């Protein structure tokens, strides 16, 4: 596993071109309960995956069960999560290690912290809980940008 990323655009250029090339990605695992149940949307998101890259669409529960395998098996895997709630659910069940905040865009109740990171008060609590549990959380949209640690981003 080479990256765990929260990105509400899911499979898109920054992931495929930016992080995919930098990490020599071989597999994308998109953990999203909604997408897991929609074959049509899975097909849509597959259009953004380069040839030779595997892609899977597990539910959160399936991700929890498979997580240890992703950490140790061969394919260089990027795990994509659609939102903070999903990373919090996953992080409550498995040791995430490090999480990249790559794209959480403006929505109701959210405050801007970076042009690509907006967080609501409840999302902030969830991220701080993960951070307090030892997960290294940084914001970084593309590999060439400076990673911004959560503490620097939002303070304590």
């Amino acid at each position, binding site marked *: 596993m080479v990256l765990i990323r929260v990105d509400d655009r899911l499979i898109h250029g920054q992931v495929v071109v930016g992080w995919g090339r930098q990490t020599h990605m071989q597999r994308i695992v998109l953990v999203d309960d909604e997408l897991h149940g929609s074959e049509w949307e899975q097909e849509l998101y597959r259009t953004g995956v380069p040839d030779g890259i595997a892609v899977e669409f597990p539910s959160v529960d399936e991700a929890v069960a498979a997580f240890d395998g992703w950490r140790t098996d061969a394919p260089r895997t990027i795990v994509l999560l659609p939102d903070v709630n999903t990373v919090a659910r996953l992080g409550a069940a498995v040791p995430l290690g490090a999480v990249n905040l790559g*794209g959480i865009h*403006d929505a109701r109740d959210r405050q801007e912290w970076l042009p690509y990171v907006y967080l609501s008060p409840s999302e902030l609590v969830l991220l701080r809980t993960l951070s307090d549990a030892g997960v290294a959380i940084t914001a970084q949209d593309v590999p060439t940008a400076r990673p911004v640690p959560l503490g620097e981003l939002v303070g304590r």
Partner: protein
Amino acid sequence: MSDGLRGVVVTHGTLAGALIDAVAAITGTAEGFVAISNAGCGRERLLEEIETAVGDDPAVVFVDLPSGSCLQASAIFRRSHAHVAVVAGVNLAMLLDFALHREGTPSDAAARAREVGARALQVWEP
């Protein structure tokens, strides 16, 4: 409702606005066009912007890449809006032609745009 199909151009960065500016510079009008950038937009916001731009009018949504956030939001929008067609791989040639032929159904206009856009791709070598 304006006359003719609406053309909604959804792209990364400022490309959509630049393409529409170019259409206006060449034809003298950008009537019927709306530009949307995905900058700062998650999927939900992009869907909202497309919905606002299309409204109830029949429309063709042009996106820049045949994958990625612009296409994904447009395709998801299209699924529940039968009066819309989506064309990926937008170029200036297809927009110019669309500007002059905004009649007919979105589906017919999309097919025409694909044909015109593809015909514009040429390689000139010595």
